[in-house]
């Protein structure tokens, strides 16, 4: 299954909030939608969910116009909200019914997800009596209730403590492994890096960069080398002395045992390694330093909006 967003544009009055947004999400994979506040993430998601109409472009499911009634979509809106004065199980069953489950299925599914979220003891409580984080878990249960094939999560980690974030991470991984397509937006780069193969970074309503994370990282110059060694103090002067003409800089990072070397030519990497080994240094690790997602994010979105 493939969800394709093609050339979406959207205006609110005079303001163009989305311009030519395109990306693809596939079964068994997760797509991370990144961007600063107001970049257009939620608007994009709302258009996919049919809450807003796009001014241009289309949303396709396997090449055909997306019919939201034909596919189970699990949606966690940015504006969280269920019925505060209703019993938890009661409202989960209601949402299950609306999603097309039978009463029995809805009951079983509600029970299953409350257990999975560790919320079984609250099943007969009113939602408003729960803490914010726990309400968020109930909201997630409501999202995943219908065993969705497409899961759209808008900022799923906000408001969760580390233990609950871990729980959610496990759940999302399970859903990806079971073949669901997941699209989610987040500011927490570590989570995105952990299970997204593809990312789209939005900036001021446009795609700043998009594609496979590894490929994006590889597209950066691979001329920065990190050398981990207990002899870091001796390595730095050795490099400057022996191969000074081939490098731009060589520094030891503060008190750590890491030497960062910037090469003039990335291809000189192997020569550097050989000369270090020849000298008899004890090296724990020698690797090309890739930019973190955080670096990429900041680079593309700084000064935007």
């Amino acid at each position, binding site marked *: 299954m493939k969800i394709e967003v093609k050339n979406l544009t959207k205006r609110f009055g005079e303001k163009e909030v989305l311009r030519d947004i395109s990306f693809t999400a596939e079964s068994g994979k997760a797509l991370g939608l990144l961007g600063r506040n107001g970049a257009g993430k939620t608007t994009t998601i709302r258009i996919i969910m049919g809450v807003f109409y796009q001014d241009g472009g289309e949303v396709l499911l396997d090449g055909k116009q997306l019919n939201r009634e034909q596919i189970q*979509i699990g949606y966690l*809106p940015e504006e969280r909200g269920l019925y505060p004065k209703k019993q938890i199980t009661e409202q989960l069953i209601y949402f299950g019914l609306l999603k097309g489950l039978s009463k029995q299925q809805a009951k079983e599914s509600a029970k299953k997800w409350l257990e999975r979220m560790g919320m079984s003891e609250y099943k007969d409580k009113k939602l408003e009596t729960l803490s914010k984080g726990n309400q968020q878990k109930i909201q997630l249960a409501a999202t995943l209730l219908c065993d969705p094939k497409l899961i759209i999560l808008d900022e799923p980690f906000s408001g969760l403590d580390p233990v609950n974030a871990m729980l959610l991470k496990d759940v999302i991984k399970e859903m990806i492994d079971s073949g669901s397509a997941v699209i989610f937006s987040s500011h927490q780069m570590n989570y995105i890096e952990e299970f997204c193969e593809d990312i789209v970074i939005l900036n001021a309503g446009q795609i700043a960069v998009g594609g496979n994370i590894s490929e994006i990282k590889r597209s950066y110059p691979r001329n920065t080398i990190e050398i981990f060694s207990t002899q870091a103090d001796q390595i730095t002067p050795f490099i400057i002395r022996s191969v000074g003409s081939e490098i731009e800089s060589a520094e030891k990072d503060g008190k750590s045992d890491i030497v960062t070397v910037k090469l003039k030519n990335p291809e000189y990497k192997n020569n550097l390694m050989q000369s270090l080994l020849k000298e008899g240094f004890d090296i724990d690790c020698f690797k090309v330093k890739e930019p973190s997602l955080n670096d990429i994010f900041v680079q593309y979105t700084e000064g935007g909006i």
Partner: protein
Amino acid sequence: MKNIIKILKFEYLSCVKNKAFIIVTFFLMGVMLLSAFLPALVMGLLSEDEEDGENKEKPVIAISSEVYDQALIKSEFESSFSESDIKISKESTDDLTKKVDSGDYEFAVKINDELKFTYITANNSLFSENYETISDVVKSMYTVKALDKYGISQAETDKIMNTKVTFETVTTGTDQSKNYLPVYILMCVLFMATMTYGQLVAQSVVSEKNSRAMELLITCAKPTHLMFGKVIGSGLAGLTQLAVLLLTALVSFGTFSSGMIPDEISKYIQLPASTVLLALLFFLLGYFMFSFILGALASFASKSEDLNTLTSPVMIVLSAVYMIMVFMCTGDMVDSTFMTVLSYFPISAPMAMFVRATMTDIAVWEIALSAVVQIITIYLLGMLAAAIYKIGVLMYGNPPKFGEIIKMLKMQRKANQK
């Protein structure tokens, strides 16, 4: 369709299980039971008083007269004041006054002339009818005495004067006199119910918006389904409440007050099944019309506080229609052309056609035509309400202006056509 049923079931149960709703229902049931029970209670207390009184002496009424025959006075006064002892006295006005004041006499009457008397009483109550009764008695004695001169005996005079006329009424159309009271009451119920249950829909929309459950809802179900489900669900809850109250009224009044209502009144409280059915029909039509409007308006409110501002124009219109109906009924203008026009104009039709259908003699096709006009209006309003509901969902902050709403609806229409 399946979704509408699920939604209406949920809405219905939400309403019926709502604490405030339950409390109001029980409160109204209590009021009904009490008002049905009260006459019986009061009468029971009164009759106890009377039982106590049997042991006591009857109050004495003193009559002093030199104009009329004593036997005549006694028989005429006794027939009019059967609860009291009639004493023929020759005391002076001053003596009578003293004895009335000391409580020896309930009251005293000094007949000064054939058609003139002095009524001496300790407390002149506003509600006392003694004055009129004594006048009647004196008048009657005067007649007897006058006719006696022509040789007609007292017995014959009494017979002539107490003759009763019996009559029957044949009404060819609708008997307004019999329908007036129940129609009036039902109209009031119609008005109150439309307003109350319409507000229920508005509240439900606002609370969903306020709790931000709406975004999830509109991605789970179509706005039309949500709107229709909500309106039908709350309407059914309203009908349940009305049914419970009606049943309470029937049972309680049947049990406690049967036979307590005098025939003169009960003949005005005839409630034919057709009137009840018409009330039900026009309640439903009116309810749907107003609750769609209120539901749509409520989708623009972010908080319950905004609701009053948004819905007050509708409430004013509804109240105005009700006032006009009351005016038409009391002013005996239910047959007027204005009323006919109102009975086809969608907003006023539910109440106006109900009044016309029950108080005047109109053809069934007129009722049907008005109902069809209303059903079409309801359908269109329902669709419009659902569209407004959808654009209102994600609108927080100040309610938008009318022009903006129209613009947004147009945009949505355009998007739908794509």
